């Protein structure tokens, strides 16, 4: 099972802040997970089109080719704007 989190405008666009998802077969890295989620259609397309979307795996910044494994916490969010 993956725990997936969405923040800021992405959370608003998707209408949800988190979900639990059994690791889809064939999804081994961040890029593949993004495509898998975007294929849900509708607002999920944001996962491919959002500018500069960032991803963290287990609360560490990740890249498109970072590996995803069962049990991971994966978060998608826009560039940060705190401070």
């Amino acid at each position, binding site marked *: 099972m993956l725990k997936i989190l969405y923040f*800021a405008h992405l959370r608003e666009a998707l209408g949800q802040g988190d979900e639990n998802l059994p690791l889809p077969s064939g999804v081994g890295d961040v890029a593949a997970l993004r495509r898998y989620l975007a294929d849900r259609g509708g607002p999920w397309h944001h996962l491919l089109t959002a500018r500069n979307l960032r991803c963290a795996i287990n609360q560490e910044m990740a890249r498109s080719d970072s590996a995803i494994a069962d049990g991971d916490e994966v978060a998608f969010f826009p560039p940060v704007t*705190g401070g």
Partner: protein
Amino acid sequence: MSVRIQEADFDLGKELAEFHGDPRIGAVVAFVGLVRDSNDAARILEMTLEHYPGMTEKALAAIVSEAGQRWSIIDALVIHRVGRLRPTDRIVAVAVAAEHRGAAFDAGEFIIDQLKTRAPFWKRELTTAGARWVEARETDEQASERWQMG
């Protein structure tokens, strides 16, 4: 070294008292960020700060630890508020205590510059023209990157 995320306001004088009494400290530099009433020509009525519980604390602790490796500092403190804030409200405090002022200034500016690009916080502004998520600034990215050359 201490990192806190909270909804409540803070009193900088009281927070700096945490450093007080260590006779090695010769310099304290503190930065406070506040909500301005305008941004990109829009009038700000209110702001909401969202964060990523867990990761935000880790990211801030990593930044503070990095500052401690780069400069000779004795103590450091980061407080960041979340939730609803209004113009003139305090958003964030960064404070660094060191023997000498150069390290305290550099480490303080490093921490806030890195926080702006590496700590997962997001600002949503309510302006007179409606609500909008604040976009990341190119200047913040530049301010953060210049430390790579230091």
